[in-house]
């Protein structure tokens, strides 16, 4: 027996490292609209999974199901090995069985939205310390010190006392990334983080996200930026009409796409 264990190559040991996100047979219906038709997805620690696909393919819905912002109709979701306990809500869908569990899981998933969604009544630094102080119970001074580091990192330290409405879209999104980093997320979820930005502001946000990817942060990234996905992703998933059509390494997906639909999609967007 011991011999068998010794025989496992290092590569394999690394591969069975903790699975950060596990999604299995996920279905999501909005009324009669069947958006996700049995999608499975897995991300290990350190993975950067890019989800690509056309408009209406269900990629944002898939991301939003991971932290139950949308309740899946059926399926299994595990975050850091912990399965989100779901119950049927009586309308053919599910909802989290245990509110405390889903709140705890959400508080360690750093979500970044397409439309930034910074809290308008708080200054930038107040936005960044809000969750650490009020949800995670971090001392205010410690949270502020950490928030200043994060704001410096995204290049916004001098804007710390400015309200979001007085920042550009790119600055708001970088601030939102700092807010997500402040919860020390196990996994970061990006929901089309550059789609609402003016073209000249996209670069500054992608720069920050790319830096996070290079330092080995686990992230799931829904994006329309194909070039960026190819650069930073370790794994690319292509969704088409609610089904996982093809997945693989960035080079395989963008270099030699197998399915007809992926070939069409790549021709269209590049």
């Amino acid at each position: 027996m011991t011999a068998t264990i010794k025989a496992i190559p290092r590569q394999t040991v690394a591969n069975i490292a903790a699975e950060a996100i596990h999604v299995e047979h996920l279905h999501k219906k909005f009324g009669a609209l069947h958006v996700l038709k049995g999608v499975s997805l897995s991300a290990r620690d350190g993975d950067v999974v890019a989800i690509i696909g056309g408009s209406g393919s269900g990629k944002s819905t898939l991301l939003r199901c991971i932290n139950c912002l949308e309740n899946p109709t059926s399926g299994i979701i595990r975050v850091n090995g912990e399965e989100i306990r779901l119950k049927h809500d009586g309308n053919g869908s599910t909802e989290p069985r245990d509110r405390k569990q889903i709140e705890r899981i959400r508080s360690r998933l750093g979500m970044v939205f397409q439309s930034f969604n910074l809290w308008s009544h708080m200054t930038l630094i107040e936005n960044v310390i809000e969750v650490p102080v009020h949800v995670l119970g971090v001392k205010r001074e410690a949270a502020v010190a950490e928030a200043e580091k994060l704001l410096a990192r995204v290049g916004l330290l001098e804007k710390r006392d400015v309200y979001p409405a007085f920042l550009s879209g790119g600055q708001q999104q970088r601030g939102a990334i700092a807010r997500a980093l402040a919860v020390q997320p196990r996994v970061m979820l990006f929901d089309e983080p550059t789609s609402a930005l003016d073209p000249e502001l996209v670069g500054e946000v992608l720069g920050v996200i790319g830096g996070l990817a290079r330092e080995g942060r686990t992230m799931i990234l829904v994006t329309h930026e194909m070039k960026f996905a190819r650069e930073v992703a370790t794994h690319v998933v292509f969704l088409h009409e609610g089904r996982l059509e093809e997945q693989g390494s960035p080079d395989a997906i963008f270099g030699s796409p197998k399915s007809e639909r992926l070939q069409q999609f790549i021709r269209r967007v590049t």
Partner: protein
Amino acid sequence: MTELLLSLDQTSIFELLAPTSPGWGGNLLHGFINSIEIGVGAFALGLLIGMGGAHGKLYGGPVQRDLLQVYTTLIRAVPELVLILLVYFAVPDLINRLLETFGYGRIDVTGPVAGIVALGFVQGAYTTEVLRGAILAVPQGQIEAGRAFGMSPTMLMRRITLPAMLPFAIPGLANLWVSAFKSTALLAVVGFNELTLETRQAAGATKAYFTFFMAAGVLYLLLTLISNALIGRIEHWTRRGQPPVAESR
């Protein structure tokens, strides 16, 4: 014309409005303070009812929503004066009949409490709608962000929804405060000693109608002006995170 001016003879005005007897100024001030008390009480009660009402209408179950809909529709449809008379006379009568049926003694529902309850109940219906509209005006993404970071529903309400809706609620609430204060005049009908009733008594006793009603008008105006100044500061503070209003020219 000269006769009118003579009747406005300054010394007599000051004598009439003197704070101590034989002047009636003290009575007016007493009524003014009563009015403020009732107004503040009614507004506060309305705010409490409104917060519960708005929350129930937006997030409550179907039964709760229907009941609140009936409440806001009925209250806003019936004249305030009718509701005041109802709370002053009909409701205590009903309560006392019930109490007597079960062998308890009668209670006396009069004075400021009844006034606050009557006006506060009316205010509550309007406040419910003002706050509901304000909550709906909060960008949903901000509430969603709170959920996504693991906030509980109560924390979400306290930390995000309530402060974020304030800039949308303050103008409506300011209106309601002024209207609550002026509605206290209706309580004169049921014999409560607020500013209007005191004024009418003073005017009736001295026949100096013009003097006293002008004085009462000035007092109402004064409170509104002070309120406006305070509300302006509050509004400025709640709008600290809002972009400046664009010019429409």
